[in-house]
């Protein structure tokens, strides 16, 4: 035969708890203990409330631009739950739920968006990287972090999160190529939420799935219902197994949806159909999980009311901690430039309120302390 297929494949989609409440017992039974499902539901509700409060803080001028995570809580949470504490989480900015689950204090994320670098001062031993503002750049770091684990002969891995838009950046493709060809323990977790600000996914990827991008690099790839916590946990566990035992990367496309605007600086009504949004509201991961708990008699309205109260108290406390940080000294941004501050920076810091002539160091020094 002069023409014959040399490669054939398909992309699978994993769904365990669907939007109609149907639960696949075969895949789902025993996947997550009930008490963990309850804990994760509580966590998602609390994260949702944080979004609400952050939005209000921004609108009242007490916070800068903030990107709501609303609707995407199940993705990073499912991944963080499925991974070990030593595995790296290399995130973008819609992974609050996973980061908090891992142990990042909530006020850190608040501080970041309040324009305060101390929000990036990751507590020792927490293997997470700071929120990535430059889109599509952090995946390479994950590849390097996974590489380091392999180099040391450990069985840790790095899981990196990014949006559908980010898969258009060159760095993304380089990260995939390195991870696949050097056999590195990395999980590429794409949160396909249909939009990159105002640009629909079709402009980033004209193939039927984003998942199949992984095929081109020779790595395992899978699509998952990103609003289904169970399915996310399953595919990340499988990917982690592959990474730990075979040092192979996996590409996961989680299909989810951004229920809010891109950020508080955006107005999605300018470009997005109200109908599309309404349809996705029905697939809200919180509603779905609540339904699952209800059906098993694990939850009720009084528990929900108590949870709501608890979430409000937790978030209020986090906001208070963020608001109560000491004022930054005006020269703080000199402090962490290098391990040791070089003389030119010391001089600039001393005279920062005046100009570079340094003719009146006395006045300069005085005003620098005001």
């Amino acid at each position: 035969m002069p023409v014959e297929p040399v490669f054939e494949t398909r992309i699978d989609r994993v769904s365990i708890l669907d939007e109609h409440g149907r639960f696949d017992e075969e895949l789902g039974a025993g996947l997550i203990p009930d008490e963990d499902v309850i804990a994760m539901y509580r966590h998602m509700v609390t994260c949702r409330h944080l979004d609400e409060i952050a939005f209000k803080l921004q609108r009242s001028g007490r916070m800068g631009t903030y990107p709501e995570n609303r609707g995407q809580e199940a993705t990073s949470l499912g991944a963080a739950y499925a991974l070990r504490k030593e595995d790296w989480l290399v995130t973008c900015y819609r992974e609050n739920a996973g980061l908090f689950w891992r142990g990042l204090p909530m006020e850190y994320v608040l501080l970041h968006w309040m324009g305060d670098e101390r929000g990036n001062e990751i507590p020792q031993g927490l293997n997470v990287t700071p929120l990535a503002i430059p889109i599509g750049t952090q995946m390479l770091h994950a590849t390097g972090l996974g590489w380091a684990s392999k180099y040391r002969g450990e069985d840790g891995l790095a899981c990196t999160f990014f949006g559908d838009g980010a898969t258009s950046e060159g760095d993304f493709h380089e990260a995939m190529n390195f991870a696949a060809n050097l056999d590195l323990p990395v999980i590429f977790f794409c949160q396909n939420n249909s939009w990159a600000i105002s640009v629909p996914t079709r402009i980033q990827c004209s193939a039927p799935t984003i998942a199949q991008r992984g095929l081109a690099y020779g790595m395992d790839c899978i699509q998952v219902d990103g609003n289904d916590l169970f399915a996310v946990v399953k595919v990340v566990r499988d990917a982690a197994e592959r990474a730990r035992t075979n040092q192979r990367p996996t590409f996961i496309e989680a299909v989810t949806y951004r229920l809010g605007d891109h950020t508080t600086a955006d107005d999605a009504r300018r470009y997005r159909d109200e109908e599309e949004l309404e349809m996705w509201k029905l697939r809200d991961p919180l509603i779905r999980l609540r339904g699952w708990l209800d059906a098993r008699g694990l939850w009720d309205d009084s528990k929900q009311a108590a949870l709501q109260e608890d979430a409000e108290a937790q978030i209020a406390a986090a906001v208070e901690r963020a608001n109560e940080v000491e004022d930054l000294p005006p020269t703080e941004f000199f402090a962490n430039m290098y391990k040791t501050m070089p003389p030119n920076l010391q001089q600039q810091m001393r005279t920062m309120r005046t100009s570079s002539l340094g003719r009146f160091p006395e006045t300069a020094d005085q005003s620098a302390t005001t």
Partner: protein
Amino acid sequence: MANLTLVQAINLALIQEMERDDRVMIMGEDVGINGGVFRVTEGLHKRFGADRVVDTPLAESGIIGTAIGLAMAGLRPIAEIQFEGFLGPAYDQICTHAARMRTRTRGALTVPLVIRVPVGGGIHAPELHSDSPEAIYTHNPGLKVVMPSSPRDAKGLLLSAIRDPDPVIFFEPKRIYRAFREEVPEDEYTVPIGKARMVREGSELTMVSWGASVIQCMNAIEQSGRDIELIDLRTISPFDMETVSESVRRTGRAIVVHEAPLSCGLGSEIASRIMEECFLHLEAPVQRVTGFDTIMPYYKLELEYLPDAARIGQAIDEVVAY
């Protein structure tokens, strides 16, 4: 004449040039239906259609690299990079290709490309949304770099940039996108690239600035009550040394103000040129009031970083007293 903000003036220039020349097209992230995140391209997608106002994939290198191809083919692409902090991925295409194509091909292939980029701090934006990288692109030969400080100049400079036969980076200071309005002629006019604007005349010292810092300089000059000459470079590369030099020879004193870091900022180059051309006229060393050699801080401290009237005022006192 219409009373317009900087954003509206740029929008008007884009519309008029697209009406005039069907080779002109706009490309970038969110520039289409959304009208750009700052609404600079508002209404253009509707008016000129999706073939001329193109929402691209999210890839800065891709945007500039393909724009180079479009430009080499004779079109007049205007590429938007959403914030100056995201020029990074496009750096290679800008400096390795756009800037060099004419030289490499001895003029056989050229890149008449405009790269529009919101620039600078002062708007409470997140990380990497407040930098001032103009000197980096000035240091790269083969590019022209422009930064207007007023709506009127913005319109005229943008028309010049679009009609320019070489790549032009058109930096738009976001701090003054909507800070004030100005009478902007409806009619077509251009502001030449490479020509500074005398903002106000004075005899005691010469102040040189560009972009949003021009406003800070005006404030400082007013507060000082002194007779200070203020020059807005408008074009950073190639900059108008003739105007600067003529002024400094008269006043004998000079201060350069910019948001970008001190070391190897444009102030360094301007100070050297002043020393070369005005040495015997100088009454004081040239002074620079700039950002610091640090990463631009997040917004809680951005006003500590950016030159303001108080810091410029100190420099005025020092230079005059020298």
